[in-house]
């Protein structure tokens, strides 16, 4: 009994409840007539689609900057990357690579400024980050209108200028990673390329956190005074973490876009940080500690639930409950994690 109790406290109630809920959905799916094959395909696709953005949160959590509610900043870098690559006429795999190459310098630039700002508001990072994200998205909403994009696929049809709300990647690199080496088993398709790319990114962060810099970063998050006494520049490490997080957020949205098939601009990135944050928290991370395992488990549980609820619940209740459940779970998770944080510090 004690071992079960210890396991429950160790694994955490939210994770257990959500895992059981997801399991229930998978079990009841065939009963209500939802096919499992396509469902699993969806779960894997959405897992890969979102995992990198969840991963992008890790460096900042580890460096003590809290959950990166300013993730939209990185996403904007990614949007610049993809739209510019399309504007320049790149298609297919080269297009995707060029998009990444353009995203990285923008991500570096945004991350640097963002890091500088966060260093000035120590202790209030998460609140400030949220507003940084919001205001950057709004600023770019103006920019998308006035930047001189000319490609017909990109701009609004009737005016000939200003980006469309959503831009199809059909002729560019839609499903590029998803279809790469995809394995088909009956009606289930495993998106090998997508999984490989996600795996690569996870490995990158995993290795990065084990370098001297990554170690210093973790120590800064754990105890800044200790890190400073060990000759580590706390401000520099925090900036490094925001830069890595922002760049990775940009790459994350590129992966999301190719799987989703569309580039969404204007206010689309506004709430992108919330699902990522709650996925990480469901994965068992706290505001101060996050690991690769948290990322993988959390994204899988969260996205699994999002994929399965509409199909299963809707066919039972005949109403669209999925959006409501998504909002309750994602925001509820964030509240839960934030209250837990204050409990610990007390």
């Amino acid at each position, binding site marked *: 009994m004690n071992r079960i109790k210890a396991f429950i406290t160790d694994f955490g109630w939210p994770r257990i409840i959500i895992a059981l809920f997801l399991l229930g959905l998978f079990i009841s799916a065939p009963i209500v007539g939802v096919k499992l094959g396509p469902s699993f395909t969806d779960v894997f696709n959405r897992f890969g689609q979102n995992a990198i953005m969840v991963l992008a949160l890790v460096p900042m959590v580890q460096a003590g900057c809290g959950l990166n509610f300013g993730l939209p900043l990185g996403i904007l870098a990614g949007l610049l990357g993809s739209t510019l690559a399309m504007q320049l006429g790149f298609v297919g795999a080269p297009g995707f690579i060029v998009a990444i190459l353009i995203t990285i310098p923008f991500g570096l630039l945004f991350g640097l400024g963002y890091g500088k700002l966060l260093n000035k508001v120590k202790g209030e990072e998460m609140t400030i980050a949220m507003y940084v994200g919001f205001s950057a998205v709004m600023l770019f909403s103006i920019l998308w209108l006035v930047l001189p994009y000319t490609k017909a696929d990109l701009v609004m049809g009737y005016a000939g200028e200003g980006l469309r709300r959503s831009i199809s990647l059909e002729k560019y690199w839609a499903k590029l990673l998803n279809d790469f080496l995809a394995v088909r088993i009956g009606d289930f398709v495993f998106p090998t390329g997508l999984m490989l790319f996600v795996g690569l990114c996870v490995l990158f962060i995993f290795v990065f956190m*084990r*370098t001297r810099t990554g170690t210093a970063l973790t120590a800064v998050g754990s*105890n800044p005074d*200790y890190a400073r*006494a*060990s*000759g580590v*520049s706390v401000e520099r490490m925090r900036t490094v973490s925001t830069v890595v997080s922002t760049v990775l957020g940009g790459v994350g949205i590129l992966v999301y876009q190719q799987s989703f098939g569309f580039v969404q601009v204007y206010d689309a990135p506004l709430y992108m940080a919330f699902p990522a944050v709650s996925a990480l928290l469901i994965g068992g991370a706290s505001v101060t500690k996050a690991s690769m395992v948290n990322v993988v488990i959390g994204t899988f549980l969260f996205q699994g639930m999002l994929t399965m609820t509409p199909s299963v619940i809707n066919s039972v209740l005949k109403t669209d409950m999925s959006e409501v459940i998504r909002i309750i779970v994602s925001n509820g998770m964030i509240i839960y994690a934030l209250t837990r944080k204050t409990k610990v510090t007390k």
Partner: protein
Amino acid sequence: MPNETPLLSLEGISKDFYGNVVLEDVTFSVGRGQIVGLVGENGAGKTTLMRILFGMPVIAETGGFKGTVSLDGKPVAFKSPFDALDAGIGMVHQEFSLIPGFTTTENITLNRETMKSNLACDIFGSRMSVLDRAAMRKRASVAIERLGVKLDPDMLVSEMPVGHKQFTEIAREIDRANVKLLVLDEPTAVLTESEAEVLLASLRTLASQGISIIFISHRLHEIVKVADRIVVLRDGKAVKDVPTAGTTVHDIAKWMVGRDVQASVTELSTCKENTFLSVEHLWVDMPGETVRDVSFEVREGEIFGIGGLAGQGKLGIANGIMGLFPGGGKVTVDGKDIPLNDPHGVLNSHMASVSEDRRGVGLLLDETLEWNIAFTAMQAKGEYLTPVLGGLFKLRDEKAMKKLAEQYVKQLEIKCTGTKQRAMELSGGNQQKICLAKAFALNPRLLFVSEPTRGIDVGAKAIVLETLRTYNREFGMTIVMISSELEELRSICHRIAIVDEGKIAGILAPTADIAEFGLLMSGEPDDKNGDAA
């Protein structure tokens, strides 16, 4: 006053915090209109004694105390400071608890304001009554007058000189109708000498009006001047309870620091003649431990002790040199200039430090022992990293870190379940050993150790001190040890500097007379005040 019941009497007061005895059978009494000077080193138990007297909740929470407190001959047991206030005991704290934006009058009568009722009161009750400012002002003036000082009742506290704030605080206590006993905790610490004189005079005035006073101070000459009786606390025991007449500052200093047991002087290593560390005109802006102008030299292979009372700046010296707080001056080690305000540069100059703030600065509480021990060496010197992919980048060498941690766990007898245990879960003594291991892992030639034995048990204390001695003897490590415990310094150091008010008051040999240390600590010039009383 032999036949009179003393106002306050404490009998057989004992208190321990989880087995750590801080007060042992303390007995003394305070007569009516008497001023009792209470002296003792940091940690001698003064604060705990006052907390017991005031019925602070922390005492009950930690298991209560033994003995009886009687007021006017009747045993009392205060459940909270409010009970103590109601019984007529007033406390003036070391830090001011005044509201800066309020006037003297408002502060003195705070929460006890004289109220005036009006029409609204008849309808809505007494909550609608308004302040009777004229009456309040009068009350404040009376209280100030009883003190025998000049204070403007209408001045804002924020605009007052420090001395006036202190008087306002005292006036507030004596404004209570029934105040019988005042406790003043270091009231002169923030005052200039002339302000302190005025304060002492007003204490005498109060005493002559029948108010008893317990006066706590580190400035021994003030105690001698103002107190009728002197109680000396040392290691939780009231070692002396004597009338002031015929007592000298010198005597008090000796009682305060002197131990019954003779310091065990072990054989010291022989240090070389050359100067290894030289500090010239160092200033450090460390809050609460300001260093003003410190110069000293340490020879190679020496264990140099720095002592002094809390808040005088001894901790600031190590923190300033290690670059953790902004500072200036000139520091050279082995002939080379040490960059100040640059923690990284210092660690690269064969120096290391063990912080006095073990949990705050010394440890990564959430991380493993391996991390705690190896991290500084990894960051400062690039050790415990292993190249991968043909030197493309370097990763943590977990194996080497584990080996290092295991080596120190064995060497320093660190009690843990394994090197993967988190630092938070260790006891204080073992955490301190981790801090030492972290510093040793840098292979420093010069080590600063601040308060190495604070809050750890006797066994761990012995191991920590022995380890320092061993490293000094076997590896010729030069050690600067900063400690509040004089006995400890005397048992391990070649020379001991005493810091007072941000400056070095003097440097003594460990064998010097214990009274000399006491005098330096209290900021008393060594030569003349010896017989003044």
